[in-house]
């Protein structure tokens, strides 16, 4: 039943996006020698429906912004970029669209993928189709275990649990005296992994905390009054949550209505994904809030970030969240890899040459330099901090801003998460 609707959306949305997403009639630059003159086709997978739709939208907007700029300044080696956008939905349908992008549209690379459920499936197909795939936000982790330690064609996002690790480290820094904790996380792998990892980090860091309550509401619940009653009853010193969608907004609002955070610390590892909905009226100061890998209001941010935020706000009347930057880095790294490979062979690179060039490459993202680790995992920095009302917005921002690199907060290639955490030298 769902297929029918998704298929419809695919046709309608895909067609609209493909025409809208920057395929200018006139190429502005001459292709370099050895480079075909026709546009290079890049396949994009974006979630357009359901709870993650805002995340998919942010990724797509970041991609389109990139494409517009690159096409204006001559494309990749003089080749214009044509985006072919397909919808990410359930694993089965998305895999079909992924194949279609490669077999029918003949794209050179596929970029996108948010839901781990989907990207677990895409990883295997990418290997089979022998076309590079760069994932926006999905991994090929099952729980916290990597299922594809040495992929050839798949490039994966940061590990799911990094923001819980960073939050754990910062919990010790800012909320040292905490003795009891409660967790409210969504009832699927990301929610469970984050809660488990967060506790493991606190334990390793010598915080002798006792978990007094674990709540795992389904994704999409819009009423937490009963959950909040349970939290009030358990009276933890600190509440940890990895909510990342509208549920983060809702629980903060409903918590404010009963004054939940008056005597309790709060850690929201991922709520920065909906940061501009966290209004000051109901979001207290002093919560630990994670913005994932891009913080829109970073005073030390690059001119590129500032321009992006400004133009994003002007166009969509919103402030961008991290997924825009995952998407921006992915597609920018593809461009840099093609140029790197071209510098050696003076020919438009084959797909295999692109993959080789991508390994270990650095590229400028909106939030600074990011890279692909040699085992195809994205390396970047995470932004978290304590919420403050001292800004010019009607929502909270963070101060101080803690920036933690995946070099220290993500498990190294080939290691097991809990073994790695337990092996930290404190």
């Amino acid at each position: 039943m769902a297929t029918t609707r998704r298929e419809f959306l695919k046709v309608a949305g895909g067609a609209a996006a493909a025409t809208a997403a920057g395929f200018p009639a006139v190429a502005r630059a001459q292709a370099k020698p050895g480079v075909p003159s026709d546009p290079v086709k890049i396949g994009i997978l974006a979630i357009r429906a359901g709870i993650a739709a805002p995340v998919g939208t942010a990724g797509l907007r970041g991609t389109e912004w990139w494409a517009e700029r690159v096409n204006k300044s001559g494309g990749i080696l003089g080749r214009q970029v044509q985006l072919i956008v397909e919808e990410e939905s359930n694993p089965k349908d998305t895999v079909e669209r992924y194949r279609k992008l490669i077999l029918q549209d003949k794209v050179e690379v596929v970029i996108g993928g948010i839901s781990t459920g989907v990207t677990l499936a895409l990883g295997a197909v990418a290997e089979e189709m022998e076309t590079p795939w760069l994932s926006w936000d999905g991994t090929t982790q099952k729980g916290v275990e990597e299922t594809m330690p040495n992929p050839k064609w798949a490039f994966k996002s940061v590990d799911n649990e990094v923001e819980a690790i960073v939050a754990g480290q910062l919990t010790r820094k800012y909320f040292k005296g905490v003795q009891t904790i409660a967790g409210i996380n969504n009832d699927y792998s990301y929610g469970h992994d984050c809660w488990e990892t967060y506790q493991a980090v606190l334990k390793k860091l010598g915080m002798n905390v006792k978990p007094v309550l674990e709540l795992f509401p389904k994704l999409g619940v819009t009423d937490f009054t009963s959950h909040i009653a349970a939290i009030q009853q358990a009276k933890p010193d600190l509440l940890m949550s990895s909510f990342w969608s509208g549920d983060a907004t809702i629980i903060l609002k409903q918590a404010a209505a009963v004054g939940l955070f008056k005597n309790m610390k709060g850690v929201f590892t991922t709520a920065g994904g909906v940061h501009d909905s966290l209004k000051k009226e109901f979001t207290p100061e002093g919560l630990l809030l994670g913005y994932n890998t891009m913080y829109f209001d970073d005073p030390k941010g690059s001119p590129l970030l500032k321009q992006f935020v400004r133009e994003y706000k002007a166009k969509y009347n919103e402030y961008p969240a991290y997924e825009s930057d995952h998407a921006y880095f992915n597609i920018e790294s593809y461009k840099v890899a093609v140029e790197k490979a071209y510098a050696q062979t003076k020919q438009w690179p084959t797909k295999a040459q692109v993959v080789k060039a991508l390994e270990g490459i650095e590229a400028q993202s909106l939030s600074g330099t990011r890279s692909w680790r040699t085992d195809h995992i994205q390396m970047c920095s995470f932004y978290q901090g304590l919420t403050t009302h001292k800004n010019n917005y009607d929502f909270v921002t963070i101060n101080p801003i803690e920036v933690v690199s995946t070099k220290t907060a993500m498990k190294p290639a080939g290691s097991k998460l809990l073994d790695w955490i337990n092996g930290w030298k404190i």
Partner: protein
Amino acid sequence: MITNLVNILMGGVFHAAILFLVAAGLQVVFGVQKIFNLACGSFYALGAYTGVSAVGYFTGHGGPPALFIVPLALGGLAVGLIGVVVERGLLRFVYDRDETFQLLLTFALVLMLEDLIRMTWGTAPVSTGGLYLNYGQARILGATVPVYNLIVIAASLAIALGIGWLLSRTVFGRIIRASADNREMAEALGVDMRWVYVRVFTLGTMLGTLGGALVIPATAAMSEMGIELIVEAFAVVVIGGLGSMRGAFVGALVVGILRSVAISVYPELEMLLIYLIVIAVLLWRPRGLFGAAAA
């Protein structure tokens, strides 16, 4: 102890208040038209989004924030008029068809309304910000309860009483009950069924849209919020009995409070407990607590 009990109970009753409105919409339509309206959850979502827009317009044009509940309720009721369009434009063609057609049609409505919402309001959750906190908090036996939640509970209770009065004390109510009992006989006695159907369906729609509008200040609107709720509404209907208003009322209370108790006592049971009750009811009393005997 008492404080915790009040917190748990108020959380459950608040949830039940909203659940009742949606389930009541489902029941009134099924009772008379014998159509199981899957789209009742979508009407709820539509009411929620309309409520946000109505409140935004109201406060944007200088309306006093304390009165936001007026445009909220009016917006919720007004968008319920879409029921007229849906009934006349779509449903009336399938009354004599197989139930499968009716289910398919109302499911199609679910998908269409979800896309309509996405096209109109976008994919990001929308909310009325912190207006919800304007009404302050009440202290009940040591527990802090948002006054707005109490207003919603009171409104839902008033609507339940209103429907009870409508069904039992008015001419229209008698016609509704007669049509539900025996449509041919009602028609033979001169009741214009088209007229009854339009009104009943619009009433059912309005209950859903009003429920959505009323809940929204306390939460945020997401395009799939209706689907989330309809599953619980089904449980309410099964427990209470298909087509019964009293069943919707009791069923909503059972589901709301049990869910709340489960979350506090044994969170793993949050959803499971409700379905255990559903199974128990189906085994022990398949027609539900207040359902009519099976034909």
